[in-house]
């Protein structure tokens, strides 16, 4: 057993300050290496040495705080999405745009939403890009999507808690595709606004048997979000609207727990 004393770490505040200063010293972009990496992307595929793209990884880090350099890098990455590069190359690009993408790369990403092979990687970036254009692109794509691709896009709008998607999601609660309908409910639950709660409350009363568990979970999630946002009356109303005797025992207990919490009592 080692002695558990560490006197050498006593000067920690100084270490912290020094490190913060050091972190400010960013490495420079190796433009030749970046150019070579973009050249590699033209023929990049599964099995290609991934290290050949490291210069782009490094440029993502090095351009932090340099808007012009970032924009240039983003433009080059987005251009790959429009090219005939391989699935693997575009997969890589979407991963980078997840970190540095802006509204500028949204059109190139959005064009991939209906693509069975690349829809997910498009969302991999779009879900995390904070620009409102990213959410708008996914909302706009919904009517053109179906099946799993639609489910995935609905889920991403839910994760973003996109309040502007509520109307579109409301229209999907009665969708004939059970996966679409249940995911629309889940997304409304994640959004957690009073409007979403009202829609879920109405949906809970008429949901077919197969959808009830998903709608119930969405109601619970929505009510919790309403509570967290201080909207106690709306939360209690939602709990009371769907937590009837027709629900399974664990749902009814969850409702009781929620109501107690809303009333300020521990469960």
């Amino acid at each position: 057993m080692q002695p558990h004393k560490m006197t050498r770490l006593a000067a920690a505040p100084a270490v912290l300050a020094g490190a913060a200063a050091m972190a400010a010293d960013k490495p420079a972009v190796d433009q030749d290496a970046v150019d070579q990496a973009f050249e590699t992307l033209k023929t990049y595929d599964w099995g290609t040495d991934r290290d050949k793209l490291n210069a782009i990884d490094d440029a993502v880090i090095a351009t932090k705080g340099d808007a012009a350099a970032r924009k240039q890098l983003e433009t080059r990455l987005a251009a790959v999405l429009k090219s005939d590069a391989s699935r693997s190359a575009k997969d890589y690009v979407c991963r980078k745009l997840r970190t540095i993408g802006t509204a500028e790369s949204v059109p190139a990403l959005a064009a991939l939403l209906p693509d069975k092979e690349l829809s997910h990687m498009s969302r991999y970036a779009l879900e995390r890009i904070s620009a409102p254009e990213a959410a708008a692109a996914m909302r706009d794509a919904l009517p053109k999507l179906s099946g799993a691709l639609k489910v995935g896009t609905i889920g991403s709008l839910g994760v973003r808690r996109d309040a502007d998607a509520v109307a579109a999601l409301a229209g999907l609660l009665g969708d004939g595709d059970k996966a679409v309908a249940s995911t629309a409910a889940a997304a409304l639950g994640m959004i957690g606004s009073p409007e979403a709660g009202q829609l879920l409350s109405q949906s809970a009363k008429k949901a077919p048997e197969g959808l009830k568990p998903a709608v119930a979970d969405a109601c619970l999630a929505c009510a919790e979000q309403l509570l967290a946002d201080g909207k106690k009356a709306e939360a209690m109303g939602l709990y009371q609207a769907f937590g009837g005797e027709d629900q399974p025992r664990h749902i009814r207990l969850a409702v009781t727990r929620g109501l107690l919490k809303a009333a300020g009592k521990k469960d």
Partner: protein
Amino acid sequence: MWHRDGTRTGSRSPAANRREFLKAAAGAVAVPYVITSAALGAGDRPAASERIVMGGIGIGNMGSGDMGAFLGRGDVQYVAVCDVRKGVREGARGRANQRYGNSDCKAYNDFQELLARDDIDAVHVATPDHWHALIVVAACRTGKDAYCQKPETRTLREGRLMVDAARRYGCVVSGGSQRVLEDYRGVVNQCWGGELGTIKSINVNVGPLPKPCNLAGEPVPDGFDWDRWLGPAPWAPYHPYRCSGSYAINGTSWRSFSDYSGGGMTDWGAHHFGGATFAVDVRELEPEEVVYHNDHGREHLTYRYPNGLLLYHNHPGAGNLQVEGTPGEKREAKPVPTYKGQGGIYGDFIECCKTREKPFRDIELAVHTATVSHLGLIAYELKRSLKWDQAAQEFPGDDEANRLVDRARREPWVL
């Protein structure tokens, strides 16, 4: 199904009906010949109606070990296994059926079918890490308790979702590191015993970091549901190294690759960070700051907790779980928390399934540990320092880092 008040209800399934029948029949003298001693209970084997009915999801290396631990318990009835590899799940089913001398255990490729059974009280989850949160949350939605292998999460956002689901449905959800309590007793006892005075810092040495994977495709073996193995992770062609459950983190196992694992930072990090934060008693906190250091190419981190405690990662020259106390100071000893029930971390989970108490490795505590790992991974990825807001679960004012709090899941998986 066991409930929070310690009672349990029956179900509509054939298996549960059998249990209800046995329970009722135990008091009847007219049909004694149909009641076996195995059903009534004998020795350390409680009556069938009093056992926790379990299923296992992901029966690879760790899952097989977990299954063995639960199978060995008299107070567990193991009735279902799920794995995307046909040979593995069939082997696991045979193992359970051999244990009980019957053919009751069923095998599933789709975990949702297993979770749809309302005769099952609890599951253990030992899939690759990128599946953990989805399955545990789904288990809670069906009212089932869950024992989840470590590391419990693959992203920061997943942790809060798992805790929320467990609390929403009143489920017992235990994380899976037995080492947190069992491997670092010397350090834990010194810290909790007050011998070191006020603790100022602790160091953890663990690695390596995960890497991206671009392995070429190979034919998918027969009986392997590759699409389901990938699940919410980005699509990629099959390669044996991509999905090997080997414990090596050197490019020959899923633990090496960032789509499925946080590498050693989360895999062993669950143990070491878990043990360290337990020893210095910050289990319920998350760091508020992570400082990234790069000393001439040697990267390491300093985490700062809200109470001022410092947690170092790979501090040059420091040993694993090396503690800096306050020389000459003694503090009052605190009782060290431990497992409930008998049988280590597995017994702790089963006992809590019965009593509805929180297990030693309650999911919320396990998630705080996983958060340490993920914060470190993001600091290393961005190569800079970060601030973290535990309550809001975000990096305040840091859009770039906040993008890495989660990752979009491949359709049709949504969380």
